[in-house]
């Protein structure tokens, strides 16, 4: 005999009363990966790219941001669903489904994309502290060493929380929108699609897509779903979480473009340094605009510099079956630790090349992400439409069409870019 005869019906009664609260609790329990990823998308690359676009093109690329955000939601939903269904990370699935050769290709793509992101993060750190008058030759090595030892010797969760507080400085953008009272009909006219024809618009269109749907985010999303152990029963909540995350990411980008498009674009200020980008916050913060922007950019970049090399090393070691883990040393997990360390070292070194300008460096990293994105998207779509992998959770027809639509958009932008730059030379 197990359990009490009375306890059972009583428990059932209480449960019924609790159901409503439980549904909300279940949502909170699953909430996370999508929303966190949505925020994580706003790293150095995102803020810089959106600021530059607002300053240079006003609101005219807003339609592309809208499309890219929907694309982000669609693709992230696929990754989340794959994580829930298979309980495996993206690189894991690529290896098991496509074998060694394709895995090498996918991982090379990931290394290049994420490597350029690490460079961008360090450029973000350098740019933000240069506003405060600290030269990059001082800030960058300290940041690189600091990030390395923080991850190796301290708790990652603590670091993550501390940096999230800094990133809150970017709330200045939505608040600025309230103060600026932009001309909404003009803003919304940017939602009407116009094909970018000038070479520079094409470049920034590619950077916008690359920074909104970063390959890294897709791997990160699926990994967090797997780690959280989201079950099939709560898949519906996970879906809400993903779309909420994509909406947050899109809205933040929207606010940045609206603010920079209202403040910088009419004044003809192009973003060539972090100070320029910070100008957009002057109506809100006055003299403190620089400090505010620097705090946000620095926090976001540091967060990226911590997560990016780690996430890459995990993905690669998982694909090839190499030992991984932060609590292991160089002898136990040689590839993992070397990869992690090398990415930090290389990222920092590139930024220290004498005379290199930081903002173009950050934008180039987003372009690299944009060019490589279609390759990763093809892998994701092939997996998500494969009944052997996904079982009943396989892509529906609409999702598949939307997914290939995103891949086609990303593909044509990168082909267009490569084509244009080929003819330019």
């Amino acid at each position, binding site marked *: 005999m*197990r*359990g009490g005869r009375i306890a059972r019906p009583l428990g059932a009664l209480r*449960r019924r009363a609790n159901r409503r609260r439980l549904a909300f609790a279940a949502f909170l329990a699953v909430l996370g990966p999508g929303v966190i990823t949505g925020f994580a998308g706003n790293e150095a690359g995102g803020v810089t790219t959106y600021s530059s676009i607002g300053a240079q093109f006003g609101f005219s690329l807003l339609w592309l941001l809208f499309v890219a955000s929907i694309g982000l939601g669609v693709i992230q939903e696929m990754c989340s669903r794959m994580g829930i269904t298979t309980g495996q990370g993206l690189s*894991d699935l690529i290896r098991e489904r496509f074998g060694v050769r394709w895995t090498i290709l996918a991982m090379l793509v990931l290394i290049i994309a994420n490597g350029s992101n690490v460079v961008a993060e360090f450029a973000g750190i350098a740019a933000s502290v240069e506003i405060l008058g600290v030269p990059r030759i001082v800030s960058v090595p300290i940041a690189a060493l600091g990030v390395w030892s923080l991850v190796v010797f301290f708790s990652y969760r603590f670091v993550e929380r501390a940096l999230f507080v800094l990133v809150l400085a970017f709330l200045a953008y939505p608040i600025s929108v309230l103060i600026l009272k932009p001309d909404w009909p003009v803003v919304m006219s940017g939602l009407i699609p116009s094909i970018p024809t000038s070479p520079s618009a094409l470049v920034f269109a590619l950077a916008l897509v690359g920074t909104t749907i970063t390959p890294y985010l897709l791997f990160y999303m699926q990994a967090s779903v797997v780690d959280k152990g989201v079950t099939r029963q709560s898949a519906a909540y996970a879906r809400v979480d993903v779309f909420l995350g994509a909406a947050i990411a899109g809205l933040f980008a929207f606010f940045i473009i609206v603010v920079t498009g209202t403040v910088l674009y009419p004044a003809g200020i192009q973003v060539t340094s972090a100070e320029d980008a910070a100008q957009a916050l002057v109506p809100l913060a006055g003299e403190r605009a620089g400090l505010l922007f620097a705090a946000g950019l620095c926090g976001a970049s540091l967060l990226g510099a911590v997560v990016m090399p*780690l996430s890459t090393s*995990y993905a690669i070691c998982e694909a090839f*079956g190499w030992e991984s883990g932060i609590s292991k040393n160089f002898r136990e997990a040689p590839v993992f630790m070397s990869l992690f360390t090398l990415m930090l070292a290389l990222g920092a070194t590139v930024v220290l090349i004498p005379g290199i300008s930081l903002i173009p460096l950050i934008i180039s990293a987003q372009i690299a992400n944009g060019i490589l994105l279609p390759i990763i998207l093809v892998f994701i779509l092939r997996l998500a439409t494969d009944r052997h992998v996904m079982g009943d959770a396989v892509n529906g027809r609409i999702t598949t069409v939307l997914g290939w639509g995103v891949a086609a958009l990303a593909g044509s932008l990168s082909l267009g870019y490569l084509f244009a730059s080929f003819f330019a030379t």
Partner: protein
Amino acid sequence: MPYLSDIQHRRVIEPNGNEVAKLSDLAVVPQGQFPAVQWAVLATPGGERVVRWTELAQEIGHLRLRGRLDTINDAPLPQEALRLSRDLMDKQVVDTHGAKVVRVNDLQLSEVDGQLRLVGADVGLRGLLRRVGAEGLAERVVGLAGQKLPRGIIPWHLVETLGAAEGNVRVTVPRTKLALLHPADIADIVEEMSVDERRAVFEELDVETAADALSEVDPEMQASIVSDLDEERAADILDEMAPDEAADLLQDLSEERREELVELMQKEEAADVEELLTYSEDSAGGIMTTDFIALPAELTAGAAIDRLRELQPDAELTYYLYVVDGEGHLDGVISLRDLVVAKPATPITEVMDRNVLKVDVTSPKEEVAALIAKYNLLALPVVDARRKLLGTVTVDDVVDIMLPRGWRKRSLRSIAR
């Protein structure tokens, strides 16, 4: 010795030399130390065909059928058969010797007494290089430096496969090799697995091993494993766990799930756990276990030893034996040694130590840890305000509190794979 990647995709010819198919896969029944290859899967222009491996002869560069393909009967694969390429290649398996999860880069086959057998899993760099056709080149490059490429082959009898879900058909292989490992090793391996594999392992292990292994798993993951398991099974495992560990685990579950499981647990265990759940997680009550040995004060040394013989307590419970009065108040403590050397007729109240070091159930856990460290204790009794013995905190319960932050095992996979 051939590798699967060497012979896979080889041409299959008929006796007259016509190429009729390519070898696409081999299949074994995963039984015995080194399972024999029994089937060959052929990719023909008309689709996939499965034939007995004995219908084929290995020749240099190709495989020759013993008869014409259309005269050979199909040999259907039994449910338990494993297809080497589809089910094992590139998949994760457990190296039970090194107690870790590794990825199969290639499979080693060997002709033993005229039979091709699966003898090992290549998990090293060589296997990876071979798959991209660069093994020879790499060997020469490394050879120039006077080095050799290391081999990373795990003998097949030390490999445990993880259930592969393919086309929603689970290939279930009893995980007998896994069950032989130390529970702490099983826990390490389980932490590397996917949700489904994890659940499968905890469904298959015997309850006792499952309970021991679950106790060693990272707390966050414990909760997710227990949430995934069938309720009856979860309750059985919780019954087997030490009450303090079961309580800690239940604490991390949703209220609803916790109630359900406690209802399903056996009465005695459930009562212990429910009591423990009422104490704050950071107090002595929160970390103590209700498993301890309390001897009635009226016993003699001989009777006490008889009592122990009956109880057959776990080793960690016999560090200290507590003496209690009729109402369960803590009167003294005896070590097993003192009990054994005392004359059988001596009342235990004469050999016990009346100055027992104890803590109140509400004391903070740091204080408990400090006391244990200071006096080099193995366990410390926990009492309520009226000196009633409620439980004990053993040294392994406080190790985590005493270790510096960075020493604790950190599970960092959540920042992506």
